[in-house]
């Protein structure tokens, strides 16, 4: 077990350094990517700033508390790009062209290969850095901030990452039937985009929908509750359960779907 873990760690490292070298060749592109990310994050912040210029709270969340949610989305996105996100973006192409054969035959777990194949530090770096700044800024302006909450926040971020991965696995499994992944990727993108709003705005059916079917009300709000002193044991338990549930379901649909892969032209 430990040996396999080390092996995958080494594999990740070599994939990572290979991809980083590739990305650094195109320096201008790298700068533009970051600039674009910062621009869009700023637009989001301005949206909330204007909104909070007119009102006090949204679902009980103040402006600075909401910034922590917005920042958390950025951090989770960057973590996802560092671990698995790009593979799913490219999966449709692999399946359509039959290049997915390589992943199936390589001496490495297929899901892990897909995830690590294109780990990217820079793809979402601007949003990740902006996320850190926003979380820091929001945190510094809180009344109820305690340093002790930070490690628990990080733990819940990892939980959210697991949730994100499970969701991606589940949704992307459909690629093997649809052969096209554009719409699925758009859906995953919107899933993260709508995670910026506090969970407390939902009620009734919408709450159930955005918790169990599309967990966008949990993924960023749950970590943010810890930093903002809104800790709720039930919410944390729910998030962990949803993460585990999605991962299990995702792995299940993924394995089933692999059998449906028909390859192409070879």
């Amino acid at each position: 077990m430990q040996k396999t873990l080390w092996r995958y760690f080494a594999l990740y490292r070599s994939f990572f350094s290979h991809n980083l070298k590739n990305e650094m060749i195109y320096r201008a592109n790298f700068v533009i990517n970051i600039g674009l990310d910062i621009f869009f994050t700023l637009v989001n912040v301005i949206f909330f700033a204007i909104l909070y210029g007119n009102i006090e709270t949204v679902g009980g969340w103040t402006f600075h508390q909401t910034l922590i949610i917005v920042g958390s989305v950025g951090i989770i996105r960057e973590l996802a790009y560092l671990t698995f996100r790009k593979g799913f973006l490219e999966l449709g192409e692999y399946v359509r062209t039959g290049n997915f054969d390589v992943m199936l035959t390589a001496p490495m777990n297929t899901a892990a290969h897909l995830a690590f194949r294109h780990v990217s530090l820079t793809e979402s770096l601007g949003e990740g850095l902006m996320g850190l700044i926003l979380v820091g800024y929001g945190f510094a302006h809180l009344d109820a901030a305690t340093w002790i909450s930070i490690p628990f926040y990080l733990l819940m971020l990892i939980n959210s990452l697991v949730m994100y991965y499970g969701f991606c696995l589940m949704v992307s499994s459909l690629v093997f039937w649809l052969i096209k992944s554009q719409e699925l990727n758009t859906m995953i993108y919107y899933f993260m985009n709508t995670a910026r709003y506090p969970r407390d705005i939902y009620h009734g059916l919408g709450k159930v929908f955005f918790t169990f079917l599309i967990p966008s009300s949990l993924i960023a709000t749950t970590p943010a509750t810890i930093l903002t002193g809104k800790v709720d044991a039930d919410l944390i338990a729910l998030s962990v359960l949803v993460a585990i549930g999605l991962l299990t379901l995702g792995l299940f649909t993924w394995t089933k779907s692999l059998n449906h892969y028909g390859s192409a032209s070879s």
Partner: protein
Amino acid sequence: MHISVLLYLWNAIYKDEQSLGNYSLSDLITYYVLQLLINGMVLSYISWQIGTEIREGSFSNYLVRPLNYLHYWFMINLSGKLFEGLLISVVGLIMAGLLMEHISLPTNFVTILHFALAMILAGILAFEFDFAIGILAFWLVQIDSFKYMLQYGMFFLAGALLPLDLFPALFQQIAHALPFRFMVYFPIQIFLGKETQPYEGFAIAGIWIIALYFVLRFGLKRGIAHYEAVGK
């Protein structure tokens, strides 16, 4: 998906007995349903194709044809928007049906006429701005990211994300002085019966449309002089 989340957001705000500016919950929901309609019927996205044509050199084909590139794209955009408008109207009607009790409808016929006129002006203006972004490709080769920012910034100042009168006073004045508000904010304000000077707005939008037309003709001429015909 995004609009349903926004509906929850507005609902939550109004449930806490807060309100945004002088908008009632119904006004706000109507604002976003209309914004969805306008996105389909009015806002133009042809600059992506124009940019590609110029960058990849297929623009050369138009140079030898007896047609005006600006007019040509205007007609293409018009037909596209009419078709998309038809589709999006169906979606809009279904949504309006579902949200019936939350939709603020205009009460008199003149308002509807004003709204229709404002939508037409908005469509022309949106096309002109998008065309301007498209022909930037004559001077800047790789501008996709820059274009994203321009387009998004423009839509923001048009009131597509938030109604402009919720902005802080200074930004409100800036947004009011710029022509972008005629693309989204102005037609919706008319529909909601909040626009106090529709005729003045029509006149200003009309002047912008005419002025931009000449600027674009001039820009296109300069652009063609600058054009390198890559790959031909």
